[in-house]
C-alpha cells in the first residue's frame, strides 16, 4: 500500500545552523503521527518543511507518492494539498465562520461548497454559528473552526502546529480527544507538533521524539514511556530515576534493589556498569519489604504522593504512593520493585 507521507533523511538549515538533521519516518493513510520534543528541537521547522514553507537542505519529502521537497526543488504550499492548523488558529477576522471554512473551497460549485461547510460544522457541533465572526467565538470554538477550515478541501495530510497551546489547560485534553475522534471519523492523515506529551498520548497513533534536530525514537506512546531507546527520550518522557547496576551473566542486571532480566539499548558485556531506568510506577510501596528507604522529599498530587527516596549509594528514586500513606520526611518506608521493562543504559564514561 502506498504511504501517505514519506520523510526520507530530511534536513533543514537556517544559514549554517542545521535545525533538522536527517529525519526519516512515514505515515499510512488515516494515521495520526506526532512530533514531540522540547522547544527548539526542530519539530516546527520539520512541519513547515512538510507544508512547503521551509526548503530542505537534504533528503526528500513525498506526499501520496509524489516528491514535493528536495534540496533545490520545493513545491509551493498552495500546490501540495496540505491543510494546516496554527497555534493561534489564524482565523480571518474579516470573514464569518462560514466564509472562513469555505476559504479553501474556491472552484467548487456554490451548492457543493455550501454542503461541505454545513457537513463540517455539524461534525464539530458548530451548526448555527455560520454568520458569527471569529471574535464572537470562544477559544474552543475558534479552534474547531480552524480545524475544519483546514479539513474542508480534503487535504492529503493535515498539519497541526501546537493546536492546543492557546487554550485553557482543562479544555486541552477534552479537545485533544475530540479532535482525534473527528480525524478518525473522516479518516484524515495528520501530524501534530507539540511539546506536551499528554497531548501527544491522547491524540497520536505514533510519536516521534525529536531532540536537537534528530529523531530519537518513533514509536507508540506506551513504548516511548516504558522502553525509551536513549537517555534523552527517557528523560523527556515521563518522570523517573536512574539507579546504578552491573551486568551479570545471562543478561541480568544487579542493583541495590534486586536483580532483573535487563533490556539493553546498546550491546553490553558482562561486568559492565549500567544504569537502570525506574519509573515511579515501577516502585511499589510495601511495608513488608526488606528494602527500607528514607523519604527525602514528598509532593502531594491529590490521589497520590510522589516520594523521593534515598538509596544507600546516594542515588535517589521516585515512588508513587496512594495519598493515605502519609509519611514524614526522614521516615523510612518499605518498597519493592515491579518492573515489566527493566531498560538499562551503559554508563557514559
Amino acid at each position, binding site marked *: 500500500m502506498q504511504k501517505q507521507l514519506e520523510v526520507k533523511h530530511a534536513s533543514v538549515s537556517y544559514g549554517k545552523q542545521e535545525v533538522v538533521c536527517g529525519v526519516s519516518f512515514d505515515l499510512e493513510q488515516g494515521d495520526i503521527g506526532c512530533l514531540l520534543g522540547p522547544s527548539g528541537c526542530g519539530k516546527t521547522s520539520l512541519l513547515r518543511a512538510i*507544508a*512547503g*514553507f521551509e526548503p530542505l537542505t537534504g533528503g526528500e519529502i513525498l506526499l501520496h507518492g509524489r516528491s514535493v521537497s528536495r534540496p533545490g526543488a520545493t513545491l*509551493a*504550499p*498552495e*500546490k*501540495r494539498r*496540505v*491543510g*494546516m492548523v*496554527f*497555534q*493561534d488558529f*489564524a*482565523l*480571518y*477576522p*474579516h470573514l464569518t465562520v462560514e466564509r472562513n471554512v469555505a*476559504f*479553501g473551497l*474556491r472552484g467548487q460549485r456554490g451548492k457543493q461548497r455550501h454542503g461541505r461547510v454545513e457537513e463540517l460544522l455539524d461534525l464539530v457541533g458548530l451548526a448555527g454559528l455560520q454568520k458569527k*465572526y471569529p*471574535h464572537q467565538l470562544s477559544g474552543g470554538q475558534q479552534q474547531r473552526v480552524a480545524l475544519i*477550515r*483546514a479539513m474542508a*478541501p480534503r*487535504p492529503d495530510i493535515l*498539519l497541526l502546529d501546537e493546536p492546543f497551546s*492557546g487554550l485553557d489547560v482543562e479544555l486541552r485534553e477534552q479537545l485533544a480527544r475530540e479532535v482525534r475522534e473527528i480525524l478518525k471519523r473522516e479518516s484524515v492523515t495528520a501530524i501534530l507538533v507539540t511539546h506536551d506529551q499528554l497531548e501527544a498520548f491522547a491524540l497520536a497513533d505514533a510519536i516521534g521524539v525529536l531532540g536537537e534536530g534528530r529523531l530519537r525514537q518513533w514509536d507508540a506512546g506506551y513504548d516511548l514511556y516504558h522502553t525509551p531507546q536513549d537517555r534523552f527520550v527517557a528523560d523527556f518522557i515521563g518522570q523517573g530515576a536512574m539507579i546504578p547496576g552491573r551486568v551479570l551473566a545471562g543478561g541480568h542486571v544487579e542493583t541495590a534493589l534486586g536483580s532483573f532480566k535487563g533490556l539493553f539499548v546498546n550491546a553490553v558485556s558482562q561486568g559492565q556498569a549500567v544504569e537502570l531506568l525506574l519509573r515511579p510506577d515501577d516502585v511499589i510501596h510495601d511495608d513488608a519489604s526488606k528494602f527500607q528507604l528514607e523519604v527525602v522529599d514528598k509532593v502531594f498530587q491529590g490521589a497520590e504522593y510522589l516520594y523521593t527516596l534515598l538509596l544507600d549509594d546516594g542515588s535517589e528514586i521516585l515512588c508513587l504512593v496512594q495519598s493515605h500513606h502519609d509519611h514524614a520526611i526522614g521516615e523510612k518506608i518499605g518498597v519493592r520493585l515491579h518492573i515489566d521493562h527493566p531498560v538499562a543504559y551503559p554508563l557514559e564514561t
Partner: protein
Amino acid sequence: MQEAVEKTISPSGISLRVNAWSISVVAIALLLSVPVLLVLSYLFEPAGEVWRHLADTVLQDYVTNSLLLMVGVAIGVLMLGVSTAWLTSMCQFPGRALFEWALLLPMAIPAYIIAYTYTGLFDFAGPVQTLLRDWTGWSYGDYWFPEIRSLEGAALMLSLVLYPYVYLLTRAAFLSQSICVLDVSRTLGNGPWRTFFSVALPLARPAIVAGLSLALMETLADYGTVQYFGVSTFTTGIFRTWFGLNNAAAAAQLSALLLLVVFALIIIEKGSRRHARYHHTTQRHQALTRFQLNWKQSSMAFLICMGALFFGFLLPAGQLLWWALTTAEESLDGRFLSLITHSLLLAGGASLLALLLALFLSYGKRLHGSWPVQLSVRVAGMGYAIPGTVIAVGVMIPFAAFDNALDGWVRERFGWSTGLLFSGTLVALLLAYLVRFLAVSLQTVEAGLGKIRPTMDEVARSMGTGSGKIVSRVHISMLKGSLMTALLLVFVDVLKELPATLILRPFNYNTLAVRAYELASDERLADASYAALTIVLVGILPVVLLSRSITRSRHAETA
C-alpha cells in the same frame, strides 16, 4: 461613616486639591475649545450679503477643488503608501532595510516647500524644460509640458509628502498580522498575489483608512501649496474672504463648513481604529519569513521604493541645497539670524507650554478620572485635525472683539487709547499653536504615562514611598523619553506651520516659514532656500526618532 472611610483612603487635603485640579482641567479645555466653538457657531448665523455673494460665485469652486484635491491625494498616497509598506515589510530585496526608515523622510518636507522646489525644477524657465528645449530645438509653444502649478500638481506635491502617514500605519498593520494567516491561505491553495488581495489587504484596511484620513486632514489644512499654485480651495477662500473682502463673518462661515468635512474625517479615522481591534489576529508572532524576490522582482521593488524616496525627498532637498549653495542672493546675515531667533522662540515657547499643559491635563485624568475631566482632556486634544486657517479665524475674532471693546471703554472713560492688547501679539499666536498642537504632546505624554501601570504606583506605595517620591523616582525617569519626544514633535510642527502664523503674527514679525512663503510668492525661489532648508533639516529630527522606534520594534520582533 462614608466620610470617615474616605478620610482614611486619602490623606487630608488631597481631595480639595484634586477638585481644584479638575476645575482647572475643565477650564483649560474650555479656553482651548473657544476658537472651534466660535467658528462652529457661525453655522447658525444668518447668511449675510457677502455670504450670498460667495455662494453664488466662488463657493462651488472651493468645494469642487477641495474635493478633487482630496481624491487626487487619496489615489496618490494609497498607491505610494500601501505598495511601499507591503514591499518593505513582507518582501526581501536589496536596500529593504534602508528604505524601511528612509521612506519616512518626505515627512520632513512641508508641502509648500516641495511645491516651491518642483516649480523651480519643472516650470518654463526651470532646468528640465530648458534642457528639453536645448536638446530638441523647440521654443515656447512648440510642445506640451505638464503644468506643475495646477490642481493635479498640488495633488502630486501633497501625495509625495503625505504618503508616509499611510505607509507607517499600513506597515504596522502588515507586521502585526500573524504570518500564520498568510500561511493558512497558502496551504488552502492561494498563490502569493491572491493571498495579498484576499487576506493581507482586507486585514490591513482599517489601518489604511486611518492613514488615509490623516493624509486627507493635512490636505484640507494645506494653505501654502494651493495658494502658490493658484488653486482655489477652502483655505485660500477663507484668506481671500477675510483679507480681500474684509468680511470676518463670511470667513468664519466658510471655516465652519470646512470644519464639518474635517469632523467627518475624524469620525472615519476613529471608527477605523476601533474596528482595527477586531482585525487583530494573534497573540504570538512568528518571526517573519519575507518573500525572497528574484532579481526582476527585486529591481521593480527597488524602483518603486526609490521612486517614492527620490521624488518625495532627495530631489526637492537636493534642489534646495543647490539653490542655497549657488544662486541664493540672500546671505546669512543678521536678518536671517533674527528669523531663526523668532522661529526658535515661538517653537520653543509653544512646545514647552504644550508640554506643561499636557502634563497637567494627563495627570489630572490619571488622578481624578471623573467624566468631566476625561471629556475635557479629549476636547483639549481635538484641535490637531483642524486647519490652521480655521483656528486663526477662531482666535482672531474674539481677541479683536475684546480689544475693541476694551479700547472703546477706556477711551470713553479716560480719553486715551489702549490699542490692540492681544490681537496681533504673540499671545494670540501661541494660543493658536496650543489649540492646534496640544493634541500632539498630549498623546505622547498620555502614552508614556500609560506605560506606568497603576500597579507600579501601588508597589512603590507598599514599599513605603510617598506620592511625591513616586513621581520623582519612578515617573520622571520613566517619562523622560516621552517628554523629550513631545517637546520635539510640537517644536517641529510649529516651525513648519504657515497659515496661522501668517494671519496672527505681530506686524513684521517674520519666521522661517513666513519668510520662505514671502520670498517664493515674489518668485525669489532660490532666495527662499535658506529658510526652507532650515525647516527641512529640523524636520528630519522627528523622522529620525520615528525610524529609530521602527528599528527597535524590528529588533524586538526578531528576538
